[in-house]
């Protein structure tokens, strides 16, 4: 029974998702409670799964009893289990937050809306656990399709952003599938563990090199790595306030997890293409994304767009961490990934709450927070401290381990990039706080309303989590060092 946790985690949101349209025919108001129950049940199961993995080692779940490589296999290793806890926790908070901030014009469409959210969550579970390259593709597409529909659900400007997201996302998926085809043609298998045995001998073949490049390009579009990020800012800015946190915190990060699994689990971290180590390329792409993303965030006026560019810069930081090629940097990068998921959720929860209460979308309108919303401002200060990287928060420890790893590897370019992106992050938060504390307070666009409990809970819980991640950084990084680091280091 205890080994079935991965399948249960997937089936909880999935079965609810497909039963919602039937229930919703008669009882539209049941949708939200049903979704909440299903997703809140995921939390304990994810924790139980983590405990099992901690005590008994990784779970390899073979569907219908067909063992890999013939059957489809899911792998719940240390990394997947930790990320799953984060996914189920943030998904629950995002659903709580979605109550008041969902678009008011949905009407009958509230049923497919919750179905799509649950499908997105179940697809994320699938990507995290999948032990098979093709499975990753299918779940990436399920997540992406629900993502496109959710971005466009409110209509208006969001439709065009959703269309652009769809075009680029589908191009990414096609490139990824092409890479999978190359790998299959070269090795005759799709199972990651099986591939890991066969790929190292073939790593000089053009098919493997080409496949790796195509898969990277595809996943780079999905994770919005710097030059391929074009779809992200528009999509996250115009998406409904209830949807952006879910997309921003989880979708890009989970695509990055898929890449980490392919790079470190299948191909091996020491791979070189024509004497160029692949990891160095990753690290430098990440460094560029970290600096340029933060620089672009500095130039934005819309709150959500600024946070979206902040997320792009953090994807770069995570890649710097995992690309350093030593355990410290790798564990630091993954710890930063967990932090970044929480921070992005926090920032977009806050942006959603500000829109809901004050109707403020640009940073010039943020002056209305002053004196009126001390708790929200306090939460924003905690988030900013973590984004910039001040000690008691999780963001500091993530960057700390990344920098330690970079010094250990003597990659001072990476150290400089992390520090530069930190300074730029500080700059755009200073710009934000200047509007709140120093400028003349502006009257809010609409008369402020009392914040509903669900907004307070979601914003408060993520802010507390940011601090807790900092307090518990040592055991979490220790756990990642013990279980997630690829063998051979």
């Amino acid at each position: 029974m205890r080994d079935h946790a991965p399948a249960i985690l997937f089936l909880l949101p999935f079965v609810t998702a497909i039963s919602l349209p039937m229930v919703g025919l008669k009882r539209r108001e049941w949708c939200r409670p049903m979704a909440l129950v299903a997703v809140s049940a995921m939390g304990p199961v994810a924790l139980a799964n983590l405990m099992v993995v901690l005590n008994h080692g990784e779970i390899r779940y073979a569907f219908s009893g067909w063992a890999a490589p013939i059957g489809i296999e899911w792998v719940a290793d240390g990394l997947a289990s930790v990320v799953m806890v984060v996914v189920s926790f943030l998904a629950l908070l995002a659903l709580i937050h979605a109550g008041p901030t969902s678009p008011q014009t949905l009407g009958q469409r509230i049923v497919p809306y919750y179905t799509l959210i649950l499908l997105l969550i179940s697809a994320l579970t699938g990507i995290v656990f999948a032990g098979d390259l093709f499975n990753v593709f299918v779940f990436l597409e399920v997540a992406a399709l629900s993502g496109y529909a959710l971005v466009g659900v409110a209509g208006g400007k969001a439709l065009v952003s959703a269309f652009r997201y769809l075009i680029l996302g589908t191009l990414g998926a096609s490139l990824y599938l092409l890479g999978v085809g190359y790998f299959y043609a070269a090795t005759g298998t799709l199972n990651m563990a099986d591939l890991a045995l066969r790929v190292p001998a073939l790593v000089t073949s053009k098919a493997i090199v080409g496949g790796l490049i195509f898969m990277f390009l595809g996943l780079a579009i999905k994770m919005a790595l710097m030059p391929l990020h074009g779809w992200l800012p528009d999509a996250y800015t115009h998406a409904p306030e209830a949807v952006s946190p879910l997309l921003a915190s989880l979708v890009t990060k989970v695509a990055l997890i898929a890449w980490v699994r392919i790079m470190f689990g299948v191909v091996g971290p020491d791979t070189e293409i024509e004497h160029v180590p692949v990891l160095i390329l990753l690290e430098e792409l990440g460094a560029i994304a970290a600096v340029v993303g933060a620089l672009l965030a500095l130039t934005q006026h819309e709150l959500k767009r600024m946070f979206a560019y902040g997320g792009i810069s953090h994807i770069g930081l995570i890649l710097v961490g995992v690309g350093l090629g030593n355990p410290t940097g790798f564990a630091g990068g993954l710890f930063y990934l967990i932090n970044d998921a929480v921070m992005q959720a926090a920032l977009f929860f806050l942006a959603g709450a500000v829109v809901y209460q004050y109707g403020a979308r640009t940073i010039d309108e943020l002056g209305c927070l002053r004196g009126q919303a001390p708790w929200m401002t306090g939460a924003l200060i905690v988030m900013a401290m973590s984004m910039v990287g001040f000690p008691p928060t999780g963001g500091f420890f993530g960057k700390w381990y990344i920098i330690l790893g970079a010094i250990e590897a003597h990659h001072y370019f990476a150290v400089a990039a992390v520090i530069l992106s930190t300074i730029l992050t500080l700059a755009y938060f200073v710009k934000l706080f200047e509007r709140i504390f120093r400028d003349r307070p502006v009257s809010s666009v609409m008369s402020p309303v009392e914040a509903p409990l669900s907004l307070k809970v979601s914003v408060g819980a993520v802010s507390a989590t940011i601090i807790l991640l900092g307090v518990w950084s040592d055991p979490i990084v220790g756990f990642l060092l013990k279980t997630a680091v690829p063998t051979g280091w």
Partner: protein
Amino acid sequence: MLELIEAWLHRPNFIAFVILFLWGFYIMVTHHNFVKKLIGMYIVQTSVIFFLVAISAKTGATVPILLSGTVPVHAETYANPLPHVLTLTAIVVQVATLGVSLALVAAIYRKYGSLDEDEILKRLE
């Protein structure tokens, strides 16, 4: 160089794949009409599916169904079913993507009365 071209000519299906992929990509990038972009996207997806079929083609093979359990199995006489299953799944994904994208395009047309990217971007400002 001549050898390379000769090697290409021995694999016309892969040349067809490359042409289709680049053609679709070119349409996606250069056309301003949303439906034409979708057509380009569809060609790209189809070309990848064509590639999956092309790598698994096998002459003289039969369907992978065992007629009796006693006769020894010669794996080389059967077609590999896995790429076909992958192709089917990829087609399902493609159809779903096309459905969502057409719904989006229809919603855009109802809202802006146009499918031209430049015109819509002008109206967005």
